[in-house]
């Protein structure tokens, strides 16, 4: 286990202190301490039911912790609402698509941009006059290779495109820290590369934490890997360290077939 | 000698018991199937008309009609469940509300067509008329009977749901439908029979209600409001919750009228809004 100085959380984009949560006797997060440096590309791995998505839910405020703190850029955000955390720069995507079925990608991303810019309360204004917001939304779509289907209703998009739209929605909030919950879940192997190309091309200022099962992808894109088992951090380290760790092999790599 | 308020409270409890029998079925079906059945009181009305018809036209004794009204409401509800309701189990709350309001509208018109708009009189057996003196307060015999029936229903439901195989299947289906199917439980059948049970109880409640509140074609809507209040205050799917809520509504209605008559019918709505503000899922609600 690598030692990390937990007192200096101010230097990190996102960190947690003793984060715990249980449902009755079932502990889903136990005393989790994490530190994500600015611009990091971290992977969060672990067997099914290890509490990976729960951890993201705790960090983004969709689930309240029983104990512990969450710091975003040194600021304690533990008691803030999910939308307030988004406004401070903490965004996420969902493992299972959570999109706006009857909006098209342009509308959906424009919606997110409007929320960030604080113009969404304007009920008296034609949305089309907000040229900057719309063009910003369109640029995000183009960057994520969604430019050609911007006007197609979301529910009619191919699944891989919908996964990209998940990321586009998160990017529209201009996050400092982005938590990606299995961005390529359910996407055929050959397409998942595309998605991670997009992920890799994101700005270096952006701090990334992603959950992923495909070890090839993890080793290719992550600079650092955290292994979660039974709601607790089992170990963490560079890809090389994790690959060499016999304990990880045993608890995780050995039974990777769950998929 | 007991002070007169006890007599009034007794009436309130009996009224609460009636509300309980009328609403417990809706509470169970709502909790089990997450289905908003605003036509629930139409089944109660059906039970009421079955009793009235059997007593007044065929000369049956009142008590003998009670099981028949239960069965009639239960059977009708299963037919409707198979034909219509079943298709909307996964639909939105709104669609369910609209379908069942539609059925309630139809029930009002059909009842008016068959039985006329007249208020239906009913003769209860002599043994249930009058009152018993209890330390100086009169306890209506019919109300005692109502309380007894309601307690029996509660007992039967608690035993049925806690100690029988059917009860276990129902509880398993409520907790986790997918897992219940996996365990080989026929969830469709469980739904249909629970629905029949709930509607049958409504039918029984309708028959019991005639003596206290009367019966006319508007019954489907007049009592819907009270039933919905009991269900939402009590919490969906909770028998204990419905029981507690029915008592709370019955007693606060009565006590309010006795001590502050100016508040009138106000109080029960206030109780409902306050309870839901405090506990959105109702007193005993899980969600």
């Amino acid at each position, binding site marked *: 286990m690598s030692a990390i100085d937990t007192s200096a959380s101010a230097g990190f984009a996102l960190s947690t202190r003793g984060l715990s949560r249980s449902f009755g006797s079932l502990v889903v997060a136990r005393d989790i301490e994490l530190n994500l440096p600015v611009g990091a590309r971290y992977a969060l791995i672990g067997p099914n039911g290890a509490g990976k998505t729960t951890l993201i839910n705790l960090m*983004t405020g*969709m689930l309240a912790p029983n104990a512990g703190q969450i710091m975003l850029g040194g600021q304690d955000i533990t008691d803030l609402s999910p*939308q307030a955390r*988004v406004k401070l720069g903490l*965004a996420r995507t*969902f493992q299972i698509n*959570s*999109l*706006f*079925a009857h*909006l098209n990608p342009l509308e*959906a991303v*424009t*919606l*997110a941009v*409007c*929320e960030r810019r604080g*113009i*969404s309360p*304007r*009920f*008296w204004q*034609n*949305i*089309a006059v907000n*040229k900057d*917001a*719309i*063009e910003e*939304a*369109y640029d995000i779509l183009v960057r994520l290779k969604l430019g050609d289907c911007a*006007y197609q209703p979301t529910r009619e998009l191919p699944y891989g495109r919908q996964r990209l739209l998940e990321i586009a*929605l*998160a990017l529209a*909030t201009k996050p400092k820290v982005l938590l990606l919950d299995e961005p390529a879940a359910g996407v055929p192997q050959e397409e998942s590369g595309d998605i991670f190309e997009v992920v890799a091309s994101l700005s270096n200022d952006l701090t990334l934490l992603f959950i992923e099962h495909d070890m090839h992808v993890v080793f290719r894109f992550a600079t650092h890997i955290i292994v979660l088992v039974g709601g607790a951090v089992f170990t963490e380290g560079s890809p090389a360290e994790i690959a060499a760790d016999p304990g990880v092999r045993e608890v995780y790599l050995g039974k990777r077939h769950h998929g | 000698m007991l002070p007169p308020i006890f007599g009034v409270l007794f009436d309130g409890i009996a009224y609460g018991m009636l509300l309980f029998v009328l609403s417990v079925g809706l509470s169970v079906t709502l909790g089990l199937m997450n289905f908003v059945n605003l036509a629930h009181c139409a089944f109660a009305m059906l039970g009421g008309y079955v009793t009235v018809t059997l007593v007044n036209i065929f000369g049956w004794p009142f008590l003998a009609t009670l099981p028949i009204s239960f069965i009639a409401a239960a059977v009708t509800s299963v037919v409707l469940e198979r034909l219509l309701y079943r298709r909307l189990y996964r639909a939105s*709350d*709104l*669609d369910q*509300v*609209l*379908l069942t*309001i*539609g059925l309630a*509208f139809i*029930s009002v*018109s059909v009842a*008016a*067509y068959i039985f006329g708009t007249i208020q239906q009189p009913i003769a209860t057996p002599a043994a249930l008329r009058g009152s018993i003196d209890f330390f100086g307060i009169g306890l209506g015999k019919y109300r005692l009977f109502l309380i007894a029936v309601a307690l029996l229903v509660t007992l039967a439901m608690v035993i049925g749901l806690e100690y029988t195989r059917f009860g276990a299947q129902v509880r398993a289906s409520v907790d986790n439908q997918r897992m219940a199917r996996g365990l080989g439980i026929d969830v469709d059948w469980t739904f249909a029979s629970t629905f029949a049970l709930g509607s049958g109880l409504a039918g029984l409640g309708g028959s019991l209600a005639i003596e206290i509140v009367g019966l006319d074609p508007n019954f489907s809507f007049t009592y819907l409001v009270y039933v*919905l*209040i009991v269900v*939402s205050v009590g919490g969906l799917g909770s028998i204990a919750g419905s029981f507690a809520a029915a008592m709370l509504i019955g007693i606060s209605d009565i006590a309010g009228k006795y001590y502050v008559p100016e508040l*009138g*019918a*106000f109080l029960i*709505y*206030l109780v*409902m*809004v306050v309870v*839901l503000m405090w506990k*959105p899922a109702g007193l005993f609600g899980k969600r």
Partner: protein
Amino acid sequence: MANPTPLTPQGYLLARTDWHPLEIMFWLATLLPFLVFPNYLSLASQIAITALFALSLDIILGYAGVVSLGHAAFFGIGAYSAGLFSKFVWGEPFSGLLVAATLAGLFGYATSFIISRFRHLPLIMITLGLGLLAHEVANSAHWLTGGSDGFQGARTDPVFGLFRFDLYGKTAYAYSLGVLFIVFLCARRLIHSPFGLALRGIRENFNRMPAIGADSRAHIRKAYTIAAVIAGICGALLTQTTNSASLESISFQRSADVLVMLVLGGAGRLYGGLIGAAIFMIARDQFSGIAPQFWYFWIGVLLVAVVMFLPNGILGGLSAIVARWRRK
């Protein structure tokens, strides 16, 4: 929906706010009663008022996904406050509308803090409870509202000081239609605004909204207040065009009826409520002429049929047919 000429994203969104020829025809058709049905103008006036009421419900139900079974509360507040204003202050109709809208809006804003805490079934119950509470308040305030005898003493001055509310309902229809059209323009702008987009977002996926930084509850509070303002205007219109107001204006029946109309026409389509209200009111007028006792039977059958076969209402069904026809 493929566009032959590539539009800029802004141009695309701008084009969506264009008036469709059918829309223009629709509004031209609303003028027909003056020429073709001069004997039906008072019905037409009440249809216009009810249509506006359905539109106000559409904003919260069709766009924000908030089901309310107590929307008549605001209609009633508007109806009574317009009546009281005309009785005790003056009878000029437009200021009456303004007062009614303000009061209904204030009540809407106050209750929106309760409403926005709930979703789904508890929401239906709480709106029902609040609606019944409002009805009971109006009933017990007999000295102010006339209770179940109906409000007495409303008097409305001629519109612009020129047009008296006549027996044929000519002024009433022109006035109601005018207000309907102006409020409709505002509502149309609203749904094409950033706020309207946020409301659609809430309807489509309430749970995703916080994850894109949206405060859904604040949006719902605002939409609810706006809907209350419009409902208040409707109530005031009814009071002014009939010089009467009653408990019925604040009853559960009215809340249920408007929900039925909206869903019948098709929620979330702006015109659904208008068309639903027209069909409902005309059907009631016709059926109640034939067999007054049983007209709710047909409404019931219609509801069951719509839910079973036309889940998106009449407009939804029509647009599905048009879409299928175009694909061929």
